[in-house]
């Protein structure tokens, strides 16, 4: 394992700037997740690190060595794709052993056996080593695909939405597994996804990326509690953060320049009317089991808040709103730090 550094990387395809002046340092043993919508530049970034694409500007260092213009084969990288492409005519064992049997590596067979067995154990597929790769469930196949990357000991693992083709239950299971494997291996991983839950639950640090630009890099908690701008704030959190124009909340003392308030759903508190000036009307109560999502209308804006599933509340009811810990944004959507209270 080693650290990976991207210095001011840019890449353009025709008129499209896929990656713009991107800087990113991934430390040894770190799990970094790039989170963004499709066409944000996530996959291009991975392809630049592998050497499948050449950057127009900037440099890439792996383990302190500049590799910007090295061919992919000598970069010491393992890649896991969204679509697990296993060799259908080979057994699970041979699929896992394949990368080690490459003529470029010449790993002795006893050592291959040891690595394959260790990896299989870690992935809980030891019992399936003799199975043909095609006779596995979707989750097992994806574990073999991840295993094929793990048998090697590369500088970094690059993963491109490896869980997105699996069903919800399996995805939740593999999220936990992948995080456990990463911790046990001390693996360095750069993982890209558009799924905020994957980013929140697995990452040591999340990089929020949009239009080829890295907007913020930080721990899941930093990104959630302390977003740099309104886009980052809206990208993380389910249900998403509420926004209210500052002019609609006159009684709160706002920092200079505030145009928009961002209030997380758990920070919109509702209560019986009791003289407060922020009064909203319940539009709809969504029963999701462990909690309710209450949709409120306040001066033409919709807000969502969380409520206890057994709290009696009906559509049409007027309630008083209390906005806790608001985040302040300027006209351009940039965060304004809260003043001392």
């Amino acid at each position, binding site marked *: 394992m080693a650290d990976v550094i991207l210095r001011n990387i840019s890449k353009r395809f025709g008129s499209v700037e896929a990656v713009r002046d991107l800087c990113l340092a991934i430390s040894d043993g770190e799990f970094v997740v790039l989170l963004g919508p499709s066409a944000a530049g996530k996959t291009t970034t991975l392809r630049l690190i592998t050497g499948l694409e050449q950057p127009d500007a900037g440099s890439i260092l792996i383990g302190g060595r500049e590799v910007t213009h090295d061919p992919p084969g000598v970069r010491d990288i393992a890649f896991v794709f969204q679509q697990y492409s296993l060799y259908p005519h080979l057994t699970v064992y041979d699929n896992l052993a394949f990368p080690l049997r490459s003529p470029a590596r010449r790993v002795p067979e006893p050592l291959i056996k040891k690595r394959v067995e260790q990896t299989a154990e870690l992935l809980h597929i030891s019992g399936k080593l003799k199975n043909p790769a095609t006779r596995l469930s979707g989750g097992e196949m994806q574990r073999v695909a991840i295993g094929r990357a793990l048998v090697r000991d590369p500088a970094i693992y690059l993963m491109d939405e490896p869980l997105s083709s699996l069903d919800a239950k399996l995805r939740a299971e593999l999220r*936990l597994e992948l*995080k456990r494997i990463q911790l046990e291996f001390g693996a360095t991983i750069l993982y890209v996804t558009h799924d905020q839950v994957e980013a929140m639950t697995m990452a040591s640090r999340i990089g929020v990326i949009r239009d080829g630009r890295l907007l913020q890099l930080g721990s899941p908690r930093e990104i959630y509690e302390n977003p740099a701008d309104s886009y980052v704030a809206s990208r993380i959190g389910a*249900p*998403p953060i509420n926004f209210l124009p500052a002019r609609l909340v006159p009684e709160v003392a706002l920092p200079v320049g505030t145009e928009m308030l961002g209030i997380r759903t758990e920070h919109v508190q509702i209560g019986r009317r009791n003289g407060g000036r922020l009064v909203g009307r319940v539009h*709809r109560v969504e029963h999701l089991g462990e909690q309710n*999502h209450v949709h409120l209308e306040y001066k033409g804006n919709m807000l969502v808040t969380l409520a206890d*599933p057994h709290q009696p509340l009906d559509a049409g009811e007027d309630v008083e709103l209390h906005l806790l810990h608001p985040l302040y944004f300027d006209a351009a959507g940039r965060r304004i730090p809260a003043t001392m209270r």
Partner: protein
Amino acid sequence: MAEIRVENLRKSFDQFAAVERSNFTVPDGSFFAMLGPSGCGKTTTLRMIAGLELPTAGQVLLDGEDVTFRRAAARDIAFVFQLFALYPHMNVAANIGFPLKCQGMRRQEIRERVAETARLLRIEHLLSSKVSKLSGGDRQRVALGRAMVRRPKAFLMDEPLGALDAEFRHLMCSELRDLHDRINATTIYVTHDQLEAMSMADTIAVMNGGRIEQIGSPQEIYDRPASMFVADFIGSPPMNFLKFESGLRAGERSVSFRDLTLAVPEVREERAPGPLVLGVRPEHIRFSNSAPVRGRVFGAEYLGTTQIVTVDTAYGRVAARLPSSLSVQIGESVGLSFRSERLALFDAASGSAIRTANFGDAGHG
């Protein structure tokens, strides 16, 4: 608008029973979801209601009238599919108006109806756009418009949001439910996504292996699942199941759970000793040093407001939903306390819920 009633509806394909003796009523103006994994019979049921499939036995009644063997076109029901096919060479207005044009309606009237439909769907600004230029959500809105424009008695929808990504899907759920509240059309909605069903439906029928396991409001089904299948299918993460062996006596407020005694809602039935399952929702678990159920933290998943902490115990792996302010170390030994009045008990062999003060009248399908 109309009431839809299904009586003893059955469908077999050769030896395979796709739907077994289904009975339910969807009241006029109600939003009814059929929820289950693929192959559970939900789409087959929907197709029989639509008239796209003939039942092996049983009846479909529309407003009290038997339509079981009536042609689909004569049922006055609109069907919305997952893979909506719009006519790529027509603009949005022509796509929405197409069913009326086929009926031979006058152009002026078609124009008025299309405008009204577009207003309800809030896509007036798109009427002259090409459908190939639309986003996924707008295409879905146009497909809905084409179904609504005929003013049918009921809507049948088969996973209409299945092709959209998770976050956008939930947004569309709110929109669909708002639309339902505006036009109040009787709707049957088929999905395998529990969040969609919970978010939109007045009533959910949970299906498994061709049978309806439970019918109830979203909260009812969540709080009082009739079976382990329902408890596992609804909720994310799902209910935790902890196996143990014991007998039960009516009136007792605790069970002997392996070497422990655990408080549970008052038991309402007698049971000879046998394999049982304790059901615990993740949000009904708290960490407590004095708690007798102990385990080791396997993983913690930060979700913003809350975190899901997975704990390995002697009874299996347990997921707890805890405030994210709680600091948790992987490998740490913890005690788990359960909110006793919310616990469920199941028969391990049949999977059905055992009657307790909490699960008294769980409606078995």
